[in-house]
């Protein structure tokens, strides 16, 4: 039976009714960081708490990856089936700007400042049949 597994532990809540990206926030200086870390890059503080990031933000910048990356890229694509994909930073209010793949790869449909949602979807299938779940940024409909 197909199982769904997150691409990495601790990146986002999964499984969850409303999955969310997880950040660490420093109790000393209040700065948030993604992925959650054990110490604060801003002030070197080690007293941090994990919190859920907002699910909607604005696109801060973006590009389209037009060719298939080499290792460590690991999808189920081949050179023939590869489709260009968008990458961007989404500014999550009160949180942090997170880098992620976009569901949209048409440069005409992307612009800085547009609203996007954080969504969770299968990224690849493992040899054992497990579906690996990743986060993506999707234009607000």
């Amino acid at each position: 039976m197909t199982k769904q597994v997150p691409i990495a532990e601790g990146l986002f809540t999964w499984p969850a009714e409303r999955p969310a990206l997880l950040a660490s926030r420093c109790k000393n200086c209040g700065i948030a960081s993604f992925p959650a870390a054990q110490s604060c890059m801003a002030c070197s503080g080690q007293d941090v708490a994990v919190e859920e990031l907002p699910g909607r933000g604005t696109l801060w910048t973006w590009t389209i990856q037009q060719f298939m990356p080499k290792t460590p890229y690991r999808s189920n694509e081949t050179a023939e089936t590869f489709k260009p994909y968008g990458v961007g930073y989404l500014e999550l209010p009160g949180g942090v700007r997170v880098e992620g793949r976009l569901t949209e790869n048409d440069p005409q449909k992307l612009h800085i400042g547009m609203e996007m949602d954080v969504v969770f979807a299968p990224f690849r299938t493992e040899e054992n049949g497990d579906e690996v779940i990743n986060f993506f940024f999707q234009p607000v409909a």
Partner: protein
Amino acid sequence: MDVAIVGIGIHPFGRTPSLTGLQQGAYASRLALQDAGVEWRDIQFAFGGSISAGSADTLVNELGLTGIPFINVANGCATGGSSLISAFNAIKSGQYDIGMVAGFDKHDRGAFNADPKALGIGEWYGEVGMMMTTQFFAMKIQKYMHDYNISTDTLAKVSEKAFINGSKNPNAWRREPISVEEIASSMMVNDPLTKYMFCSPSEGAVSLVLCRADHATRYSNTPVYLKAATMKSRRFGSFEVFAPSQALQQVDGPTVDAAKAAFEMAGVGPGDMDVLQLQDTEVGAEIMHMAENGFCEHGEQEALIQAGATHIGGAMPVNTDGGCLANGEPIGASGLRQVYENVLQLRGQAGEHQVPGDPKLAYTHVYGAPGISAVTILQK
């Protein structure tokens, strides 16, 4: 104690299937020794770097086993800066009179393959396809074009100038001019950057002989002084390569910091510089680094580049040897290539790519992962 550069050597950049990276390094080193009129056995210490072509200190197998301390350094694209700063410190410490820095490399074709783990990033980051320096550069210039109204035509003009300069430099890899139209219409790699707007991994080697400034005229009629050599890493909040997230409040990047520190150390300002070598991993980098290093305000690049200011004959010549765009980037050697070019310029020996008007002060800048910049200021 000030520090002088009294010998320079280069192995042409590009592809040299007949020689290993190490052999190219030995070639450049022998030329540098010859240029300074010294023997390898006169050299008291060395610093060197090579990312893909073996340990730099194996150069002693080629040059001779003289027993000197030879320290390998490794800071990505800023590796040449690390060597220079370390050599600068060694001579300034008063313990050594003369030493060498060497950088060489030989990379496989195609984009660099970065390893997330080596930079302390989760494997997932590479698996989903974000461990690509090219994406960072594209996203940074995308944002910059949006904020400061830089046009895509200006992007192409930076490449056009690089290939023109490369065509004048016998040691460059790309020696054919390419038109703005061909650059702009070449394959899109990472929007808004096309294939001809990026530099590629390549091969090559540079070595430099450095000595105490008060000994310089023993070795060279045209010594060039290293007035500043600085390196800075990213502060919290700057937008850097390989960052799964970045802070909402942005601060200046390491280039701004390294430039300020260098100008302070040398006691000069951006307006005093006669020739500039600025890290041009792609055209966006050159554009943004012009402002980050203090040579113009943000946004002024559009007018400057359109007016030809960054050409060899312009008011602000940038990457006179063709830069990374025309030379490719052998990581260990690339930063030292900039210094090599500036020494040529200050000596007036740059031939077809010589900047007119007897340049006296020259500037180099490199930027590398995970957010490091290194700057030098040379004076004749």
